[in-house]
C-alpha cells in the first residue's frame, strides 16, 4: 500500500499565541472590521471569570450583555445554533467570537454557516464543502487545549429531534483568527489536562499515518508530537506551569491543523463510536484505544516507517539510534504506552474499555457506527469489521 501522490492542504487561520495574546484582540477585531461581535460561551467559563478576561480585553467595543450567549451546552445542537443565529441577526452583529471548547466552537461554526449561507435549516448544509458564500469574521479563543477545533474545518452539531450528529466539513468553517492565551486554559485540572493532551496525541499520531498524510501535515504532526513528548507529563505534574501549558496548547493546535488536512483514522472512528453508543467520554475512549489502534497499524509497512518518526519525536534522537531499526515501530507504540501509563499513575486515566463502562454486548453497534464514520475511509489499509473488533477485544 502506498500513500497518496496528490494532496490538498488548507490553513488560512491567523494564530496569535502566547502570554497576553488576548491583548492583540482589539487590533485584530479592527482589522476584521468587527465592532459588534456575538460572543458564545458557557456558564462555567463565566463563573471561572474567564469570560471577564475576554471582555476586559475588548473593552473598547462596549459589549452589551445581550451580545453574550452563556448557555451553550456540552454538545453543540441545532437549537442553540438557531437561538444564537437569531440573536446575531436581531442585534445586527458583524462577527463571532467563540470562547470555549469544542462544543462552543462547533456552535459558533454552525452560527457562521447559518448566517453566511442565509439558511433557516442548517441540516440542508450537512456534508462536505456545501458552503459557498462569504463567511462572517470569526475568532476562536480556545479554553481546552486538545481538540484542535480552532484550526479544524469540521463541526459536529446534534439534531435533537432525531438524536443524529450532523457533520459539516468545509474550508469555510475555519476561523479567521485563533487566540491561544495561557490564561484561558490555566484552570484545567490534571485529569482533564491529561485527557485533552491524549486527544492531541491521537490527532497527531493519526495525521501522521492516514492515507492523506503529506509533507505539510507531517511537519505539523511531527512538531506537535515533539511538544507532546516533552511537555504533557510535565504539565500534568504541574498544571499551573505557563511554559508547559503553552507548549501543549500549541501542540494541540498543530495536531488540529495536521489532522484537519490529512484526517484522523481508525482510533478516532472507534472512539467516536464508543462515545455515541456507550455515552463515554471522548478523551477516555481515545486514551484506551490509542495503543491498540497503533498496534493494529503495525501490519502496514508505511505505518511502520511513520512510527519510526513518532519514536524520534516522542523520545528523541538518542533513543532512536539506540533502538534496532526493526524494533523502532514497536518502540514507538511502547513510547505511547509509557506516556499513557504515567498519565494513569498521575491522574487515573483509564486503560480498559470495561473500566469506562463499555459493555461487550455493545460491540456490534460500536463496530457498525465506526464503520460508517467518514474518518475510517482515511485510515491505513481498508479497515474491516474484524479489525475494529480486534481493537475492541484487545482494549476491553
Amino acid at each position, binding site marked *: 500500500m502506498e500513500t497518496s501522490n*496528490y494532496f490538498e492542504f488548507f490553513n488560512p487561520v491567523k494564530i496569535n499565541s502566547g502570554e497576553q495574546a488576548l491583548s492583540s484582540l482589539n487590533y485584530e477585531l479592527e482589522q476584521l472590521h468587527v465592532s459588534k461581535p456575538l460572543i458564545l460561551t458557557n456558564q462555567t467559563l463565566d463563573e471561572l471569570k474567564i469570560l471577564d478576561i475576554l471582555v476586559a480585553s475588548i473593552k473598547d467595543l462596549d459589549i452589551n450583555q445581550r451580545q453574550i450567549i452563556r448557555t451553550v451546552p456540552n454538545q453543540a445542537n441545532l437549537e442553540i445554533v438557531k437561538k444564537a443565529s437569531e440573536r446575531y441577526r436581531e442585534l445586527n452583529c458583524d462577527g463571532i467570537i467563540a470562547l470555549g471548547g469544542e462544543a462552543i466552537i462547533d456552535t459558533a461554526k454552525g452560527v457562521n454557516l447559518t448566517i453566511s449561507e442565509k439558511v433557516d435549516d442548517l441540516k440542508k448544509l450537512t456534508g*462536505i*464543502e456545501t458552503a459557498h458564500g462569504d463567511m462572517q469574521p470569526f475568532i476562536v479563543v480556545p479554553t481546552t487545549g486538545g481538540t484542535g477545533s480552532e484550526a479544524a474545518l469540521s463541526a459536529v452539531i446534534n439534531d435533537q429531534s432525531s438524536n443524529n450528529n450532523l457533520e459539516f466539513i468545509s474550508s469555510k468553517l475555519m476561523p479567521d483568527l485563533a487566540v491561544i492565551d495561557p490564561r484561558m486554559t490555566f484552570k484545567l485540572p490534571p485529569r482533564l489536562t491529561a485527557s485533552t493532551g491524549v486527544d492531541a496525541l491521537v490527532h497527531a499520531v493519526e495525521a501522521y499515518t492516514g492515507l492523506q498524510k503529506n509533507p505539510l501535515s507531517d511537519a505539523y504532526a511531527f512538531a506537535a508530537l515533539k511538544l507532546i513528548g516533552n511537555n504533557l507529563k510535565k504539565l500534568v505534574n504541574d498544571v499551573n506551569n505557563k511554559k508547559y501549558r503553552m507548549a501543549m496548547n500549541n501542540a494541540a493546535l498543530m495536531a488540529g491543523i495536521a489532522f484537519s488536512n490529512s484526517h484522523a483514522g481508525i482510533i478516532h472512528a472507534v472512539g467516536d463510536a464508543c462515545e455515541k453508543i456507550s455515552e463515554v467520554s471522548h478523551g477516555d475512549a481515545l486514551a484506551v484505544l490509542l495503543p491498540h489502534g497503533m498496534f493494529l497499524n503495525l501490519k502496514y509497512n508505511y505505518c511502520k516507517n511513520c512510527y519510526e518518526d513518532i519514536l524520534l519525536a516522542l523520545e528523541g534522537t538518542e533513543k532512536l539510534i539506540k533502538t534496532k531499526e526493526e524494533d523502532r515501530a514497536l518502540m514507538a507504540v511502547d513510547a505511547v504506552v509509557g506516556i499513557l501509563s504515567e498519565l494513569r499513575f498521575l491522574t487515573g486515566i483509564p486503560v480498559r474499555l470495561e473500566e469506562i463502562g463499555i459493555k461487550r454486548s455493545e460491540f456490534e453497534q460500536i463496530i457498525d457506527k465506526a464503520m460508517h*464514520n467518514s474518518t475510517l*475511509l482515511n485510515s491505513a489499509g*481498508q479497515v474491516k469489521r474484524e479489525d475494529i473488533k480486534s481493537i475492541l477485544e484487545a482494549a476491553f
Partner: protein
Amino acid sequence: MKYLHHIIDKFILSLIGRSCTILSDRDSRIKKELSYLPENFTAGVAVKKKGLYIVIKKQENKVKYFGYHRYPENIDLKLYFKDEEFAYQVLAAKEGIRQAFSEHKVVVEGDLEYAVSLIYIIEIVEAYIMSDQFAEEVLASNFEREISRLQLIFRSLSLFREKGEI
C-alpha cells in the same frame, strides 16, 4: 481525450447505477450495507457538480435505478467529484473511490454516514465490474463474486430504468 473520458465516465456511472439494482438482489455484502440506509433513501452520483446525476433509491432493501437527472432536487444525498478528471480516475479503475474521498476529491451534500455506506456499495460494484487485480486493490482482500461479471453486465445493460417521480 477529454471527450473520450467523458463518454467512459458516463457509461461506467450508468453501469454502476444499474449494477447496484441487480446486486442489491444478489450480493450479501450490498444487502448488508443497504440495511444501514433508511427506507426510501435516495442518492445521486455525478462526475461533477453541474453534471448529470445517476439517481438510485432504496426500497424494501433493494435498489431502484432512476437513470440520469440534471442536478436533482429533494434527494437525500448527492455525491460528486470536484472535477470530471478526478471522476475518470475512479470510474476507469485507476484509483479507488475511498482513496479519492481521502484526497478531498469528492464532495458530499447530505449525511456523511450514509455517504460512507454509498462509497462501500460503489466499491463493491466496481470490484464486480473491474479487473480482479483492481478488486483486490480497492478491497484489500480476495474478492468473491456472488454473480459472474458477464452475467452482471449483461443483466445491467438490459435493465430498464424506473419511470416517474423519484
